[in-house]
């Protein structure tokens, strides 16, 4: 008997413990009260350890969550930065569209004052060398743009076409020293030729010495060269040079068109002219 117990002591112990467990369980479920004589001691003994470990775990998890949150904030920052860039680009594009719209509206308004063949064009390139004043427009032969057509803007004369290809044309600006436009002083009707000057402005030459020209006078096209319609603004006189001798005088003219900033122009064919203003 003792030998049996000795040989099976583990199983017997386990069996006994199983029975004890069932008795504990039965007692607990019957009385609906938690029968646990050692719970107080165990819980109290474990409390400081549990508290310390829980605090450690809590600080580690808090640090981890903070780190994860920081990663989230960083990603959010990058996303917002990207969004700001996109919005800034959109705002810039909208501003550009608004400006273009304004300029085109002015061009359209100006074109309505002219009669004859005309073509709106965009400036797509500028001269590669600083001592020439030419631009390239995005309209050419295929669009009805030919050589020696007047190029104007709502603010005045821009230049004339010199070389034309199928879909683009080079425009010689009035500030180029090779340019010449037949012009008159609007107030006194004194006639001369407006040529480009090397300083980026224009000069009105071949004015008779006796003609009435003053600083501030407006210079307009005469229409006699067969290229520019009559009465288109060229610029204002900024200085008049009369020598002691000679038959002629020279006037410095500042173009009314900001040629270095202009973006859209109107190419006007021969025979075009300003409409008579109706009262």
């Amino acid at each position, binding site marked *: 008997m003792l030998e049996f117990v000795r040989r099976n*002591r*583990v*199983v017997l*112990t*386990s*069996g006994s*413990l*199983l029975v*004890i*467990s*069932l*008795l*504990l*369980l*039965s*007692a*607990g*479920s019957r009385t609906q009260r*938690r*029968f*646990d004589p*050692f*719970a107080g001691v*165990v*819980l109290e003994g*474990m409390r400081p*350890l*549990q508290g310390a*470990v*829980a605090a450690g*775990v809590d600080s580690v*998890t808090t640090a981890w969550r903070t780190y994860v949150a920081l990663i989230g904030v960083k990603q959010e920052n990058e996303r917002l930065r990207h969004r700001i860039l996109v919005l800034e680009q959109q705002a810039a594009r909208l501003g550009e569209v608004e400006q273009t719209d304004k300029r085109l509206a002015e061009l359209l308004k100006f074109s309505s004052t002219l009669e004859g063949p005309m073509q709106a064009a965009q400036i797509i390139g500028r001269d590669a060398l600083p001592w020439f004043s030419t631009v390239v427009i995005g309209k050419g032969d295929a669009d009805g743009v030919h050589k020696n057509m007047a190029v104007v803007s709502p603010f005045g004369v821009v230049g004339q076409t010199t070389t034309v290809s199928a879909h683009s044309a080079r425009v010689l600006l009035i500030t180029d020293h090779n340019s010449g436009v037949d012009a008159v002083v609007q107030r006194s009707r004194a006639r001369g030729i407006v040529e480009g000057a090397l300083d980026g402005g224009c000069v009105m030459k071949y004015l008779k010495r006796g003609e009435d020209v003053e600083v501030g006078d407006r210079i307009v096209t005469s229409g006699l060269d067969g290229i520019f319609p009559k009465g288109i603004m060229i610029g204002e006189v900024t200085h008049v040079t009369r020598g002691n001798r000679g038959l002629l005088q020279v006037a410095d003219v500042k173009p009314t068109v900001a040629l270095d900033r202009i973006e859209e122009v109107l190419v006007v064919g021969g025979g075009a002219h300003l409409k008579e203003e109706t009262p």
Partner: protein
Amino acid sequence: MIALLLQTTVLPLAAVGRATPDLLLIICVYLGLHQHSVAGALGAFVLGYLQDTFSGSTIGLNAFGMCLVFTVVYLTSRRLWVDNAISKIVVVFMASVLKTMAILALVAVFMSVDGLWQTILGYLVIEALLAAVLSPAVFALLAHTQQVTVEEEE
């Protein structure tokens, strides 16, 4: 005690849904495999009892489960060779299922908790898998601790 501390503080962080790896069960299986003595059986009971104390369940529920697991693992390991890593993992998985089923049976007999069956069954496999995955590391740690203790005693 350390296992109980970890079970109640750290391991809930590794929970999958409501299923947490049962560290005390893995220790109980280790006792069943390597502690073929009365102390092993008492150890299993104490583990279950502590689990009951800290879990809020009726006292005896987990104690019974642990004792049953210990007994079955002990009897199995006496008749079958379960000393390689894979078989130990399988034993832990089976032990987890056995403990859960035993608890479910006791709940059915002694208590009437609506819906507890479905809840526990829903997590039975996940919990068993978590315990099985964790078991190689715990076994290695326990074996190392035991070896160090034996060396110190010698």
